[in-house]
């Protein structure tokens, strides 16, 4: 994992809907090229390349050059900090708020 792969970097990187869509497509493929990602995406190849660069900097994708192509694959470790740790607390508090709402309805209808 690179230095840049902090919770905040991951969150900022995936906050962009287009970039998140690119990431989801990479996740669903074993390996995929920029050309394949561009086809049918409605976005230019240059834009896709920029999103891949950001995802790579955040530690979310890795690349493998082969011949004239570069293949991209998802890097599961990139998400681990956010999901495993902070995510569990975000879920914890959202659930507690829901329970608080229920309790309030009971004691103060």
């Amino acid at each position, binding site marked *: 994992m690179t230095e840049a792969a902090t919770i905040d970097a991951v969150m900022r990187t995936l906050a962009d809907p287009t970039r998140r869509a690119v990431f989801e497509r990479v996740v669903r493929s074993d390996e995929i090229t920029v050309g394949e990602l561009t086809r049918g995406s409605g976005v230019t190849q240059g834009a896709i390349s920029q999103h891949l660069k950001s995802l790579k900097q955040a530690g979310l994708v890795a690349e493998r050059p082969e011949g004239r192509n570069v293949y991209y694959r998802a890097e*599961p470790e990139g*998400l681990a900090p956010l999901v*495993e740790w902070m995510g569990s607390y*975000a879920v914890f508090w959202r659930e507690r708020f829901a329970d*608080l709402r229920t309790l309030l309805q009971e*004691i*103060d209808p």
Partner: protein
Amino acid sequence: MSDTATLADRHEIVVDEVFPHTLEVLWKTLTSPGMMGRWLHMEPTGFRPVVGTRFTYQTTPAGEWDGVIHCQVLEATPLERLVYSWKGGHEGNVGYGARLDTVVTFTLSAAEGGTRLRLVHSGFVLPKNEIAFTNMGQGWTKVVQAIDAIAAEQG
């Protein structure tokens, strides 16, 4: 936390909702130990809404952590703000039960239709040793959805 320079390595969780109840009722649910236990699902031991008071929550142990969350009241302004430290976990744990040295802040304010409750749980630091996820499989989509929700909350 307004200093963006610190956001790269420290992070916070924010949940902000309006409840159709008065400030007084909300304050009671935040500060009466019996009520706290009913919605937090862990009743505090030794809690009083008085600055300096030390209290604990008992939750599920993990590894070398006994599951005790150690807290101290840092601020208690009736009907407005309750702040306490939230420390627990163990260096040997990753994910659940990882070392935590955080602060929980509840802020109440009058809002249209009731009372706004804003929770900020701050001071999360990226754990040093993360276990690599190698076999996430179909869990990926859920993971991304979860991040979407978290990112939306962070604004």
